[in-house]
């Protein structure tokens, strides 16, 4: 039984469709990410759930109740805005307490709950600070505390981490997940950062031009992207076009092992191969010979550009101390397990997993 349901929710501005028939079922306590490039309609979708944008068509159901046309102040959802939207003339405690005041909760109870939630986000020493006296990460935690304190049935987060630097961002991702799991609030987070979406969500919704193109658990979105766009948007991907054989494809005269998608022999297909699934092997043991044309060091791994008969292939190798990494100009051979290379015919339909 889904807790929050979107039924072909659409939004059009004039003759431009910002969100096109988005349908989604979110279970209670689930953490779902809306992932997609800029302008694909993520914020618009979130704001329709929040009631800040009037849907052009479709409906929103919360716990079996139709809230499509309910005013935002009656929905009781917790929202964290991209700009945080903290009230600048109120202290941290006043900001957090505002939602409780609106619910006419008594002073003593208010103080208790504010203290509780500020402890949860580890801001218990900042009660009397004004938002301008806080760092970016602290502001963001105030925004989360302010949304959580009203104990909302659903928490909506619009790119809550996009204003933070990389290190803080990573810390806050885990922090966000910890808070969400402690409280158990159903959460929908908008992001255009694929790493963020994959690392902390239960399910990822990929959006493209206002449409949902894949709804799946993070590992499935990564390993079995439904479209070529998703495969290149999420992580790095080598795409090699060729013709299908049984358990292989033929491309530029080379035969490359792959697992099939039921494409008939001779059909044009695309082979998708993640850089980290490719191994650099001694001569004579690989499927594809090539020459290293560039290499980049990332600390935990190396990235090699390898020129081959089928074009440029990106290979990622973990930085182990076993052997020296191949140098630029060095001939290498590439190998992979057939299960790691997926071949697929175009066009493809949306694949989906219910949660």
């Amino acid at each position, binding site marked *: 039984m889904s807790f929050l349901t979107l039924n072909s929710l659409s939004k059009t501005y004039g003759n431009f469709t910002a969100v096109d028939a988005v349908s989604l079922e979110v279970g209670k306590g689930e953490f779902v990410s809306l992932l997609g490039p800029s302008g694909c309609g993520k914020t618009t979708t979130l704001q329709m759930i*929040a*009631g*800040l944008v009037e849907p052009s068509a479709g409906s929103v159901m919360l716990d079996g109740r139709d809230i499509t046309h309910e*005013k*935002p*102040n*009656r*929905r*009781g*959802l*917790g*929202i964290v*805005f*991209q*700009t*945080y*939207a*903290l*009230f*600048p*003339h109120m202290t941290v405690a006043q900001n957090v307490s*505002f*939602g409780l005041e*609106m*619910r006419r909760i008594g002073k003593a109870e208010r103080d208790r709950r504010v203290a509780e939630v500020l402890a949860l986000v580890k801001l218990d020493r900042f009660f009397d600070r*004004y938002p*301008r*006296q806080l760092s970016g990460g602290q502001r963001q935690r105030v925004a989360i505390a*302010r*949304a959580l304190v*009203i104990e909302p049935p659903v928490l909506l987060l619009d790119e809550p981490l996009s204003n933070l630097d990389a290190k803080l961002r990573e810390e806050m991702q885990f922090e966000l997940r910890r808070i969400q799991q402690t409280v158990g609030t159903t959460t929908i987070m908008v992001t255009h950062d694929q790493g963020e979406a994959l690392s902390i969500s239960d399910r990822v919704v990929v959006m493209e031009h206002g449409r949902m193109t894949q709804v799946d658990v993070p590992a499935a979105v990564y390993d079995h992207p439904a479209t070529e766009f998703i495969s290149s948007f999420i992580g790095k991907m080598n795409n090699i076009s060729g013709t299908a054989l049984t358990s292989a494809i033929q491309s530029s005269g080379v035969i490359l092992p792959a697992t099939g998608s039921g494409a008939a022999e001779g059909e044009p297909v695309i082979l998708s191969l993640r850089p980290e699934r490719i191994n650099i092997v001694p001569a004579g043991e690989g499927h594809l010979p090539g020459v290293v044309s560039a290499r980049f060091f990332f600390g935990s791994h190396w990235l090699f550009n390898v020129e081959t008969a089928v074009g440029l292939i990106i290979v990622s190798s973990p930085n182990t101390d076993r052997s020296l990494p191949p140098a630029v100009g060095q001939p290498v051979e590439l190998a992979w397990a057939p299960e790691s290379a997926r071949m697929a015919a175009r066009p493809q339909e949306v694949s989906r997993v219910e949660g």
Partner: protein
Amino acid sequence: MTARTHSTPWFLSLPGLIFFLGMVVLPLVLTAVLSFHAYDFNLGVRDTYTLSNYTTVLSDPYFLSIFWRTLRIAFITTVLCVMIGVPEAYILSRMWNPWRSVFLLVIIGPLLVSVVVRSFGWSMLLGSTGLISKASIMLGLGPVRILYSETAIVIALVHVMLPFMIIPVWTAIQKLDPGLESAAWSLGASRFTAMRRIILPQISLGVLSGSLIVFGLSASSFAIPGLLGGRRLKMAATVVYDEYMHELNWPLGAAIAFIVLVANLLIMLAYNRMIEARARKVLG
């Protein structure tokens, strides 16, 4: 070299300095000096100095009632401008083009018409044979005469001063994060509560500075009380005019002008301190 760099700023600001000294400071000093001259009905301005102009003005109930009226009218005008201007600026900021441009023009439009012409317009509307009176007669309520009353002056002043309130408030609203209001709604605040608790405190600076302008301009207004107040209802500026042009008692006129100037200055400085205190609180 150093001497030149030191004199350059002075040299560059010389035109402005001359202008300011010649157009503002000099007339003020002359007025101040004049206000201490003695005056005789038969002999005109004398070369002896006296404080009697000030004692006359400050002890005459006629003049005191005019000062009091000036302050009252300026205050009422300011309050009305806040009450009308703030919601108007808010509505304006929520409008989309082309309506926004149209209404902005409607608001600023009056500034493009001479005050005298506008005042005549109001006197035609408000007079005993004016449109409003005629409408009231037609409704069987009998004639109403608003012209030559404080009400007429206040109505016309509010009309003229509204842009000076709306523009600073509108600017303040433009600077707000639109997410603030949405955040307040999402936390359960009604539109009205969000406006009162979140929006108003943050545009209070705009409201205060707008009030300062409106109060100052209303207290020193001349054409509107002159044309709509008639012979009886004087305000500070019109009574100064009377002393200069009808009584020919220039020293007395100068004394009134100075008292009004000082009173206005004191009120505005006090108000300004309040604004700065508020700014420290809101902006940190």
